[in-house]
Each structure stands twice: as structure tokens, then as C-alpha cells.
């Protein structure tokens, strides 16, 4: 009985297993259908006579605009608002459509788009090994007549290409975008203070073109310092703040760039598209934080501790102008208020911290008599003497730093965070040092 059942089963199996109808539910093979989809996308890409506009938000949160024009020969012409070159001069590179896990658009040789993804931090201001976390290999999500939705395959950047109008394309070709990028020239202002002024208003700004941020700094009527960081993006007119900046009755939503005056290092701007204003270097803050020097000095002094600086002085656009970092085994500089007492004077110390095999060591430094706090918000250091023995190889860095410290006009202090200050030369604002607690 059992064997009969087994035979029945065998019979059923052998008949069922031989179903020969293997017709696909589709007319074409998967390969053919993939190729069909790719050629459909290819046709869509090249069917934009004025190219495509794209806005990319990188993984680091910066917003960039691009203009792409694809042709049938695997070539794409690109503009980008990354810098004055990329916004004014087009660059041709190659692209192709390929079926990876999804049909994908690959920008397969270097163009402006790759600058955002470049793992070399000097290219885009991002971290080495990661860049700004952007993409140049995109999966194609949706294609409509006017737009193509893409998702980056590595960093998952979302990008939508919109078919450009003739006006939009012209804005790249005739230099409107290039002019918007005039803000990049603010980097040529060597003074610490870059003042945005219009009408009766003035703010000190810190402009970061690579990270697409502006920091507005001001002191209110009660003397309290404020700092606000605003993200921005460019348009062909100028820059727009992602979140408008407000201070009481003052609101800034956009800054349209005018011409850059290379002689006076001044950029003409229109605030909110209407009011004429300017951004220029200044040798003192728009409004001085009068209490800052004392606050800075006392903060460390009361805790019997010190402020530290990794890079020494920045002078005339050069970081570590006196090469303190080149001192052998240099770790960092410290400023220690009321460090010690000698001959009845409680002196401050600018110390050089050196790495020793088993510890950090304060080997030598410049001593200053107690500083003068002026009523107009400056701090002035005067030399008291030298502590310890300065190694011969470090003498140049030591002397230059000491000369800079004892600058007769003294320094303004700008509070940049809860425990960070910038100390800026009051003589010309061309020299400054950053202190961290």
C-alpha cells in the first residue's frame, strides 16, 4: 500500500515537473527591458534644449546649485555655484547611464560636481576621507517631462533635475551666477572684522563660502554680545538665508551682490533686494563689547587656569605667522592670568607647552605685568620678563610672538563661544589669536 502511494506521488511529480510553458509575463527579456529603460532616460536627459537645473544639499548640510547640459555623445557640460571659476566657466566631462542595482546616472569623469564629493578636504573644506558627503553616481527614481528625481548611491544625496528655461541657462552663461559668487572675494579682506552696513545698521559678519554660513555678531544696547549662525544658498541674484536673520526690527532675508572693489576691498550689496549697503573690512567691531577683555582675563584667572591656542597668531592672512608650530615638539600656547609673583608683581604668562616623553611641560614663556583694561574695551600687555630658557631654534618664533603681544594699542576681545575668544589687534585688526578654554 505504501509503495503504491509512493508510485502515485512519483507519477504526479513526473507529470507536474515537466511543465514546458516558460513564457515570461513580459514580452522582452530583463536585459532588453533594462536597455529600453536606459534609452528612454537617455532621451529624457538630452531632451532639455536649455539643460537642467539642480540643487544639491550635501550630507554636511551645504546647498549648491548646478546646471547640466547632456548630449548624445556621453558628454555633459556643467556650471556650479561652488566658486567664481565654476560659476563663470563651464566644464565638459563625461557621463553615462548604466544599470547597476537600478538604472543609474554616473558622472564618470571629474567635473564640478565631484568637488563636493572629493575626499581631499582642501578641495571643499570637508573632512579628509569624506569631503562634503556628496554623490556623483545616482540611481534614477522618477522621470517626468520636466523633472528627474535622483538619489545618490553612496551618500544618498537627493537631487531633482528641473528642465531649465532659456532665462535660467542664460543666467549661467552671461555671468549672473558668477557675479553672485562675488561674496567669495570677502576672503580677501584681511582684517578680522568684516562689517556689513546699510542705513544706520552695522553687523560684524564671518563669512564661510565653503560651508555656506554667515555668522552675524553684534552687541545689543545693554552691552550683551550676540552671535547667530545663518545658513545660506546662492541664486543668480545673490545669497538667500535659509532662515531669515532677525534682530529686533531688523530682518535680513537676502543679500544681492553688487560689484567688488578690489582697491578698497569692498563689496556692494543690496539688503533684501532693496537697500544699498556694503561689506568691508574694519579695524574695530561695529560695537565694542566693553567688558569682554575683563571677562576673558577673569574667567581663567579666577579658576587659576589658562587659555590655550593651538596656532599662535594669524597675521596679514597667514595662519601661524610666527611659526610657533614649527618649534620642536610644540603642543600649544597658553595664556595664564596671574601666573606667579616676583618682586611684588603678580605677572601673567604666555607659556609654550612642549611635548615631553611622558608629559606636557611648560618650558618657557613671556611674562607680562598685570594688563591695563581701557575704558574703550581694549586690553594692553606690557613685558615683564622671560621665564625659563628659550631654545635657540625657537628664539625667532618666541621674539616675534612677544613683540606682537606687547602691541601698544592692545587688543579687542571677541567672544565666539561659551569658552572661546578671539583676541584681535586694536592697531589694525590684521593680527589675531584664538583662545580656547
Amino acid at each position: 500500500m505504501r509503495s503504491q502511494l509512493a508510485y502515485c506521488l512519483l507519477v504526479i511529480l513526473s507529470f507536474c515537473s515537466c511543465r514546458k510553458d516558460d513564457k515570461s509575463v513580459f514580452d522582452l527579456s530583463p536585459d532588453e527591458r533594462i536597455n529600453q529603460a536606459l534609452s528612454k532616460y537617455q532621451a529624457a536627459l538630452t531632451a532639455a534644449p536649455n539643460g537642467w537645473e539642480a540643487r544639491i544639499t550635501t550630507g554636511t548640510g551645504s546647498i549648491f546649485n548646478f546646471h547640466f547640459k547632456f548630449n548624445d555623445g556621453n558628454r555633459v557640460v556643467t556650471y556650479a555655484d561652488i566658486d567664481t571659476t565654476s560659476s563663470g566657466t563651464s566644464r565638459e566631462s563625461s557621463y553615462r547611464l548604466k544599470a547597476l542595482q537600478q538604472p543609474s546616472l554616473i558622472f564618470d569623469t571629474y567635473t564640478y560636481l565631484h568637488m563636493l564629493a572629493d575626499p581631499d578636504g582642501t578641495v571643499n573644506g570637508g573632512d579628509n576621507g569624506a569631503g562634503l558627503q556628496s554623490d556623483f553616481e545616482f540611481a534614477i527614481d522618477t522621470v517626468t517631462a520636466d523633472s528627474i528625481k535622483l538619489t545618490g548611491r553612496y551618500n544618498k544625496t537627493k537631487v531633482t533635475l528641473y528642465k531649465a528655461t532659456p532665462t535660467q541657462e542664460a543666467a549661467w552663461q552671461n555671468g549672473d551666477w558668477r557675479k553672485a559668487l562675488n561674496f567669495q572675494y570677502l576672503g580677501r579682506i584681511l582684517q578680522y572684522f568684516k562689517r556689513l552696513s546699510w542705513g544706520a545698521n552695522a553687523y560684524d559678519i564671518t563669512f564661510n563660502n565653503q560651508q555656506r554660513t554667515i555668522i552675524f555678531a553684534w552687541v545689543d544696547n545693554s552691552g550683551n554680545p550676540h552671535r547667530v549662525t545663518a545658513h545660506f544658498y546662492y541664486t543668480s541674484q545673490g545669497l538667500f538665508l535659509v532662515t531669515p536673520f532677525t534682530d529686533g526690527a531688523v530682518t535680513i532675508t537676502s543679500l544681492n551682490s553688487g560689484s567688488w572693489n578690489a582697491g578698497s576691498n569692498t563689496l556692494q550689496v543690496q539688503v533684501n533686494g532693496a537697500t544699498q549697503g556694503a561689506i568691508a573690512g574694519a579695524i574695530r567691531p561695529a560695537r565694542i563689547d566693553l567688558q569682554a577683555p575683563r571677562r576673558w582675563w577673569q574667567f581663567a584667572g579666577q579658576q587659576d587656569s589658562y587659555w590655550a591656542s593651538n596656532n599662535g597668531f594669524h597675521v596679514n592672512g597667514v595662519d601661524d605667522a610666527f611659526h610657533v608650530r614649527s618649534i620642536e615638539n610644540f603642543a600649544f600656547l597658553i595664556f595664564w592670568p596671574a601666573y606667579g609673583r616676583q618682586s611684588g608683581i603678580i605677572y601673567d604668562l604666555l607659556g609654550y607647552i612642549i611635548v615631553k616623553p611622558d608629559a606636557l611641560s611648560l618650558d618657557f614663556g613671556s611674562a607680562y605685568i598685570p594688563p591695563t583694561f581701557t575704558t574703550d574695551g581694549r586690553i594692553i600687555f606690557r613685558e615683564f620678563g622671560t621665564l625659563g630658557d628659550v631654545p635657540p631654534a625657537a628664539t625667532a618664533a618666541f621674539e616675534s610672538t612677544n613683540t606682537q603681544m606687547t602691541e601698544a594699542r592692545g587688543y579687542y576681545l571677541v567672544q565666539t563661544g561659551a569658552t572661546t575668544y578671539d583676541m584681535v589687534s586694536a592697531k589694525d585688526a590684521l593680527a589675531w589669536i584664538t583662545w580656547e578654554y
Partner: protein
Amino acid sequence: MMTLKDNTQMKHILLAGAFLLCLLTACKKDDDLGDIDNIPGLGGDTWTPGPIDNWIKDSLTVPYNIAVKYKWDQGELELNRTLVPPKEEKIIPVLSSIKKVWISNYVAEAGEIFMKRLCPKFFVLVGSASYNPDGTITLGTAEGGRRIVLYVLNDFRIKGMSDYTPSDSNNVKMLFHTIEHEFGHILHQNVLYTPDFKRISVGRYTSNWNNVSDETAHQDGFISAYAMSAPDEDFVEMISIMLTEGKAGFDNLVNSITGTSPNGTTADVAKDKLRQKETIVVNYFNDTWHINFYNLQARTRASIVALIK
């Protein structure tokens, strides 16, 4: 009863045989392979050839059967690294430098046939460096004597380019170091060097080489820290550094060894070891491949100097 049982057994066997036949024959399907000359593939692997494609075809593919992939293909590269493709304007300068320094000199010393037979057949070019988690960067890799990946093409600058600075010469030398190194592997994988080579530094090879500085490696009789990783690497590091630094550069390196290594090797012993290795390399090239190593070295160094000085 016995007969009945026998009959049943017989029947069983017959039935099973019939089913087997059915199973074997029933499934015969005439499965047409279709037009095998026209398999569509997934697309995207061909493009309109441009000047770079034509240059590669004429200068490398036709004479030496070398393919160069300069367009982005993630599948050729590490999937966990941020990398970018090369700038188009860098590709021909890099490849023609490779041709001048590596291919032409070997051809001049060993002949066309030698090069056509042994050269790696596939180059992949990458624009940026490959950043390792420990903060170092990778400049080149090679696999199986066939595929070589070259990085940092976007920083490749040689004498005559507008933004060339002397510090760029390091990138140029590293490029050729990589290629000569990998080509050295191909040579010894075809004909192995004498076992005497492995005896020179026996017991000093270590997987801890990456924690050793080049200076300390020199003091132990190795030409570089990486040479300490294995005898094969030692052998090809000797070849590549001797070729890229030239005779004077190598002599200078050997003669400047001072002090005693942490392993207790004195400077004289270290110098002697490097000279022994040099002799084996030179003899290997002469006996195995009929190449005068010193001539090849002079030519290679001169071609590199022409690019950087």
C-alpha cells in the same frame, strides 16, 4: 508465496525502470539559445569614444594589449571608501609618463616581446587618494599581476605644468614605485629568484612592518619598511626603489645608514645585506630575463628625472 513475492519484486523493478525512463525522456525541451551574437547585456559599458579613448587604444591597447579604465566604475574599487574619478586633462599626461618611464625602458632593454608577454593588462585610474582609517593614504594597489589601481591622479603634476612645485615629485615617484613594484611581482611569479635571497634577512620578516619607520628598516638591511613584510615584497621593493631612485640614489641610501637597529643589526651588516640583495636582483635580471639591470636603472632614473627636474 515465494513466487508471488518474486513477481511483485519484479514488477516493482520494472515499474521503477519505466518511471526512470519517463523522467529522463519527458523533460527534453528544445531550448533555443537564441542569437548568441547579440546578447544585450545591462548597458552602460560602451560610450562614444573621445580623444582619450583613441589615445589609449593607439598607444597602449593595440601595441601592448593594456586596457585602461579611467571612467568611474565603483565595481573596480573599494566599496567603503570615498573616491572620485580622475580629471580628464590628467589622464594622457599620466599614461604617457608611464609609457615613457616604464614600458619604453623595458622595451629598450628587454625587447617588445618581453613586455607584451608580461605587462599587467588592466589599469584603473582614480582621481583622489584612498584615505585609510588610520590617517594614511593609499597611492596604488595591484592584484594578481593583472590589475593595477592608481590613485591621486588629480594631483599628478610634472615639470612643465603651470602649477608644478618640487614637492609634487614625490607623487610622481610614488606612481612609478607602485608600477615597478607590481611589475616586479609579475617577474618573480613567472620565474622565482634564487632561494639565497630569502636567507639574507631570514627571521627579520614581520607582519608588524607598518610600525617600523623606513630609517629603522634601513638599519636592519631592508630598503623600506614594507620590504620587511615578506621576502617577495623585499625582492620587488628592491627592484622598484633601485629603479626609481637610480644607482646614485640607492648608493646614497646604503651609505647613509648609521647606528645599530633595535634588533641589534650594525650599520656594516645592514649595508652588506642590502649589497647582497642588490647583487641577487642584478643577477636575476641578467640570468633570467637577459636584462642588464644597471642599464635599465640608468634609463628609468633618467626618464623620471626628466619629468621632475
